[in-house]
C-alpha cells in the first residue's frame, strides 16, 4: 500500500510517503489509522486527534469508513487551505 502524508501530518510522521504491507485483517480507513498509530511515535502523534485528519483513497476524498486494500493509495492530511 502507498501511503502519503501532507502538511503537519508529514512533519509529525517524519516522511511524506511510505510503502507498507497492509495486514489482512485491516479493511477500513479507521482500522488503518489505529494500526498506523502503533507503528512509530511520529505516527502516534500525527493521528493523536483523528478529528483533525482528512483522508483520500486513490486521490478521492473519503471517510473513516471507506474500504481499503493493499493495492490502494491512501493519503492523510489536515483540512485543505488552498485558493
Amino acid at each position, binding site marked *: 500500500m502507498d501511503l*502519503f502524508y*501532507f*502538511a*503537519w501530518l*508529514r512533519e509529525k510522521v517524519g516522511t511524506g510517503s511510505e510503502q507498507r504491507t497492509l495486514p489482512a485483517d485491516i479493511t477500513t480507513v479507521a482500522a488503518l489509522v489505529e494500526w498506523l498509530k502503533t507503528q512509530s511515535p511520529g505516527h502516534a502523534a500525527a493521528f493523536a486527534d483523528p478529528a483533525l485528519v482528512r483522508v*483520500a483513497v486513490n*486521490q*478521492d*476524498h473519503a471517510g473513516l469508513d471507506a474500504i481499503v486494500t493493499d493495492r490502494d493509495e491512501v*493519503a492523510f*492530511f*489536515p*483540512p*485543505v*487551505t*488552498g*485558493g
Partner: protein
Amino acid sequence: MIHVQTEDFDAGALLNGLLNDPAAGAVATFTGTVRDDSGTLTALTLEHYPGMTEKQLQALEDDARRRWPLSDVVIIHRYGRLIPGDRIVFVGTRAAHRADAFAACEFLMDWLKTRAPFWKQEQYGDRQTWVEAKASDDTAADRWS
C-alpha cells in the same frame, strides 16, 4: 484548461485568452493573491498533492460545466514559496450570459477551497505556522450542494 504550477501567471493574458469567442457575451474571472493582514508576513508556502490536485480540479471543472452552459473554463493554481502580493490562483469562466459566468466562477472558487488538496504555511520571520481551514469556507461551498 487546468494548470498547477510554481511559475507566476499573467492574469491579463488569461483574460484576453477567454475574450476570443464572439458567441459568448460574458467572461468572469477571479484572481487570488497572497494577503498580509499584519504587515509581518515573510512568505506563504503552498504544498499540494500531485495527481490528486489535478484530478480534483478536473472534477470541479466537469461539475461546473454540467451545472452551467460554459464555453471555456480556466483554473490556474500555484504552489511553492510565495510572498505578499504574489498571485496564487486564477479562475475564469466564459458563457453566453453573465449570470452563468458569475455563478460558475464563484462555485469553482468555493469548491476549490474545500476540495483541492493544497495546504498553506505562513512564515513570520523564523516562525512557521500551518494555516487552519475556515468553517466559513465550508459554509460557502455548502450553498451549492
